[in-house]
């Protein structure tokens, strides 16, 4: 098992304490842990389980049940294709296919360069702009398969700037 940095461990211990080490607060703890650390590998789960005094399996069971939690690190940019009904009927599947094809990843996968994670979500509430793609807090509306390349290029550039 890979070891966790001392800082991360301390953070988790404090976090659990903030929630009175109450096992019923597990989901709140996981939300905050993922916010801070980016993802929830088994090492993190192990510390949380210890602090809340519950079996590791309980924590694992919860992490894997909820799609919001992830055990693998995500790319710099999370590209989410809306697969809600309104977007689906306006052709979001074609958009998704085009992203898959260009990024060479499956849904949930991260590109080799670590820049993009491709995911889907259900309705961001901008159905009037369907089909919708969101990256971080930015929402792209009325996306066409032809625009996909432009969107990717825009963010590759951003990633380079961040470098």
């Amino acid at each position, binding site marked *: 098992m890979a070891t966790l940095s001392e800082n991360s461990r301390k953070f988790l211990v404090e976090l659990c304490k903030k929630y009175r080490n109450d096992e019923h607060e597990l*989901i709140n703890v996981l939300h905050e842990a993922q916010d801070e650390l980016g993802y929830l590998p088994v090492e993190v789960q192990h510390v949380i389980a210890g602090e809340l005094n519950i079996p590791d399996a309980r924590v694992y069971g919860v992490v894997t049940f909820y799609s919001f939690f992830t055990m693998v690190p995500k790319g710099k940019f999370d590209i989410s294709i809306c697969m*809600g*009904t309104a*977007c689906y009927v306006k052709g979001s599947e074609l958009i998704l296919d085009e992203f898959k094809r260009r990024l060479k990843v499956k849904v949930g996968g991260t590109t080799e360069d670590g820049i993009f994670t491709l995911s889907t979500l259900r309705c961001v*509430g901008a159905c*009037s702009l369907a089909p919708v793609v969101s990256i971080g807090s930015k*929402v792209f509306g009325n996306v066409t398969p032809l625009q996909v390349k432009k969107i990717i290029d825009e963010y590759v550039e951003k990633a380079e700037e961040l470098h």
Partner: protein
Amino acid sequence: MENTIIKFAMGTCGIASGTQDILNLFDKELSRLNYPAQLVKTGCMGHCYAEPTISITLPGREPVYFGNVNEERARDIIDHFLLKGDKTEGIIPPEGDFSKKQFKIALKNCGEIDPENIQEYIDREGYKALMKCVTMKPEKVISEMKASGLRGRGGGGYPTGLKWENTRKSKSDVKYVVCNADEGDPGAFMDRSVLEGDPHSVIEAMIICGYSIGANKGLVYIRAEYPLAISRLKTALHQAREQGFLGENILNSRFSFDIEIRYGAGAFVCGEETALIHSMEGMRGEPTFKPPYPSVKGYMGKPTCVNNVETLANIPAIIRNGSEWFASIGTATSKGTKVFALAGKIKRTGLIEVPMGTTLREIIFEIGGGIKGIKKFKAVQTGGPSGGCLSEKYLDTPIDYEHLLEAGSMMGSGGMIVLDEDDCMVSMAKFYLEFSIDESCGKCAPCRIGNKRLYEMLERITDGKANMSDLQKIKDLSVVIKDTSLCGLGQTSPNPVLSTLNQFHDEYVAHIDEHFCHAHQCKELIHYVIVADKCTGCTVCFRNCPVEAIYGDKGEVHTILDNQCIKCGICFSKCKFNAIIIN
């Protein structure tokens, strides 16, 4: 002199459409011009089809709504409407089709008030219902609720007053009020809009519920995917506490109540109330058998009253105006109004609220303005993954719980998706089924495994590999899944399949017998071909094909390589000479 008030619809879709930029522009221009105006950020105004939307209230006048306010239109509005008092482009008429048939109770304040300023809520009779309730006996409040005929808007349609009474009767020192803001239907956003636009109405109703059933604690279970709603709810809770509507000894009634927020984590099944309760307890959100109902044994084993967001948003108005007023709206069995998120192939998508009993036709063709473009109406889907598709034949169905069920769909939580000729009904059924497969908690075999097998059978149809006997198998398996699943998810997951099979039987048959998809949606069944006579060799398709499946020299007839074509349809939409056809 009173100021002009300018409101900006800043729900999720407004923000995505760039309303903030428009607000900044107004702010800058008006201060440059020294024009006295108050700029207010509100929630969704309902006109999602015409975002960015704003409303302007000149002193002493009725508000005027403007749609599609881009930069140019904004300048036009400032120069002509504000400064000269002239009419400008983009005015949404208040008596127009979109608004005429609507009646707002739950959405009354949405898009009208600043959700982050409790005073605006109070100025519109906010917290008056609570003030009235604390002078009444709890039993009296419950009998008002029962008399109003309000039924749960989360999908089940259980009478709210009765649920409150049941929870009140459960003996316990500790009880809970839970607001279900999990909103799982993919393609629906009513509850989120209410929380983004008018959070205090939900808070006020939760306090009233607590007072009536004898609970001192409320919990809002909300999806973590709704950051804006969460932040507005937090602000509202804080302000309600400051004003003494939450906390100890509320309005000197000796009644104490407070509300906490709990977050979902992306599991649709957690909208089911027993699963929701487990999730709030920090566990996997798996449903459990009812009874015991939450009203007897809920959160932490204590009696718990679970109400949907929209249900709650109706309650302050019912208390203020009386149960008779509410019961006078709607149909015999379904009182009041229903909010719908209207979307799909329709001219005016938006968030609408209509009296129960309004027909599907009125909603789609009057409020929604009919189908976008030149295509024909094909079906309307209500009830999300638990509901069904209704064909033209059912357009005059008045909307209420019973009539929609009878027609083969259901009310659901309020998603309404309009489909046109380009939508394949078998694919629609597949889409919803895939959703249910993704979201099944896995506890029962019929739901976990049965739905997968059902999906594979549908896939054989859309791949052109099925035969007619599969249709009977699909029906049989659907019935088994419905009868043997534990919770509402499994029990309703085959509904989209059964309803489309029932109403669009011919389309299933065409896929199976003729390997033909009317909507040209099933990729395995379509081929793009260039008609030599019509092709001018303009090279547009060649340049736009993302996979280089088209070849041909400039001025020559082009050709599509079927084995390389990914059926994206780009060339089809790009060819100006209609030289590309679908076989």
